[in-house]
């Protein structure tokens, strides 16, 4: 399958911008491929950062993509000369053009020798065959966003910027688009910057996570590493949890289960639709992990994993402690009451058994 050739080096961005009372002040170096989620509350500056990278907002600073400066002290490459694509939050299709002509808009404006995706490929990838002659106002929200994504890809971008592409959609349309986004992620070898405030989208799509708070980067790192940090206030809410890369090791057809294996152990989970050796992403929430000191063989739950305590944090809410654990190289989080922590005498280095009560398969 053809793949967009991406930047050889990383994307480096340094920006300072003031918009009224808000200040953006970031210094970031991002990986050359994979999805980087820019995550934060509204007002954290994630969209502003994306607009600065696109050149839609003029901020002071520097931007270097694949070793090329798009912006530095005396230089500012205009938006239309930057080989990037931008997917906006709301439907941004040209209302006066058919779907086909919307798709062609960017495609026609790049040199034929730069094109790495053919028109038909983009149409096929996003399942747009049946709607090419329709006008945008005759499409559903989800369909419009699929067209917008295809239109963006047809410019063969070296960077793909997505600003909460699912935020304006209802639940059903979100579920309709997510598989397309997950596939993009496998197919493209360019950096994808994905702005979101949805922990679910981060868990499903991101490889790399940048946390923004009040215009500043408070963390940046690989998804599993960053998600398992217990010192980040944005992440220790109800949805605190880790994402684990796993492989389907065996199937149990009788009970519709599969065993997903990762470094440090394995978990049994619903296995419908999966095949042996499938690579899957598991999301394990801190509230679904409990700890025990001994292994009870008779326990109804299968999912017991030996692990050791790494650190504890009790700064989230009174009476609640977040425990970071490690099973080989895989990290887990567990949310316990302060009383349980006291009863179990949990301290860093202590050996425990992890019980995973629930796990979500993400792809």
């Amino acid at each position: 399958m053809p793949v967009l050739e991406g930047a050889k080096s990383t994307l480096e961005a340094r920006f300072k911008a003031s918009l009224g009372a808000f200040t953006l002040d970031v210094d970031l170096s991002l990986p050359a491929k994979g999805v980087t989620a820019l995550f934060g509350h509204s007002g954290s500056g994630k969209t502003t950062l994306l607009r600065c990278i696109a050149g839609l907002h003029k901020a002071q600073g520097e931007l270097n993509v694949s070793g090329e400066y798009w912006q530095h002290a005396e230089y500012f490459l205009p938006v239309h000369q930057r080989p990037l694509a931008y997917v906006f939050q709301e439907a941004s299709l040209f209302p006066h053009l058919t779907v086909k002509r919307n798709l062609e808009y960017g495609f026609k404006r790049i040199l034929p020798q730069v094109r790495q995706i053919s028109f038909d490929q983009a149409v096929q990838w996003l399942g747009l065959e049946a709607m090419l002659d329709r006008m945008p106002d005759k499409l559903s929200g989800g369909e419009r966003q699929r067209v917008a994504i295809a239109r963006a890809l047809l410019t063969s971008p070296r960077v793909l910027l997505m600003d909460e592409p699912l935020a304006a959609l209802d639940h059903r349309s979100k579920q309709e688009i997510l598989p397309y986004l997950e596939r993009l992620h496998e197919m493209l070898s360019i950096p994808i910057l994905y702005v979101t405030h949805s922990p679910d989208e981060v868990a499903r799509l991101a490889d790399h996570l940048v946390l923004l708070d009040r215009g500043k980067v408070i963390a940046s790192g690989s998804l599993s590493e960053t998600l398992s940090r217990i010192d980040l206030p944005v992440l220790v809410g109800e949805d605190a949890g880790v994402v684990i890369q796993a492989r389907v090791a065996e199937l149990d057809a009788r009970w519709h289960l599969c065993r997903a294996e990762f470094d440090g152990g394995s978990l049994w989970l619903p296995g419908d639709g999966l095949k042996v050796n499938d690579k899957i992403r598991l999301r394990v929430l801190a509230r679904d992990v409990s700890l025990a000191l001994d292994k009870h063989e008779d326990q109804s739950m299968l999912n017991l994993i030996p692990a050791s305590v790494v650190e504890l944090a009790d700064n989230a809410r009174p009476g609640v402690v977040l425990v970071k654990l490690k099973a080989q190289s895989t990290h887990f989080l567990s949310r316990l009451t302060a009383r349980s922590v006291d009863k179990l005498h949990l301290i860093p280095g202590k050996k425990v058994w992890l019980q995973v009560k629930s796990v979500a398969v993400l792809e």
Partner: protein
Amino acid sequence: MEFDWTPVWLTLKLAGITTFTLMFVGTPIAWWLARTTHWLKQPVAAVVALPLVLPPTVLGFYLLLLLGPQGMVGEITQALGLGTLPFTFAGLVVASVFYSLPFVVQPLQNAFEAQGVRMLEVAATLRASPLDRFLTVAVPLARPGFMTAAVLAFAHTVGEFGVVLMIGGNIPGETKVLSVAIYDHVETLEYEQAHLLAGGMLVFSFTVLLVLYMVNGRLHRSGR
């Protein structure tokens, strides 16, 4: 007595050329007014709107002085060997362009402002240069504004009188347009001729406006 069509054709020719010229003069002004934050925005907007409040005779008077043999523009046109513009058809076109300018600029400016910037940003990320996105996005999206502007400019030029009298005079086939012809007929008590022209104007103006409102209403309902 035979009906003299000359003023009718002259009027339509004047309105047609004026409207065509105004599309090129008014569009950049409207675009600039819709997008700029420059301190000159309000002064320029006020100048463009002047013909709305000034008596046409005032506008005509100053244009006459400016374009006349002693005027600044008049001296230039003479130096270029073009003679002077007053009391010529070309002079009428120049005067009409000024006189109908607000009727083109204001609907266009409103149409451009109502679009917002999002579609232009989208076009920019799809590699369209500023001129490209103006022509392929801003102009098509402002289509109802262009229709309104063109129809108003045409109709307003057909209906002008004071400016024509001041700068054009009453030369048959050159500057004697409909409104002036009607005035002539009334002065000489040729009411039958006056009725024909005046009644025709009334029907024409009503029809033009009715069609405009119907078309724009339909465009509006279809969401474009």
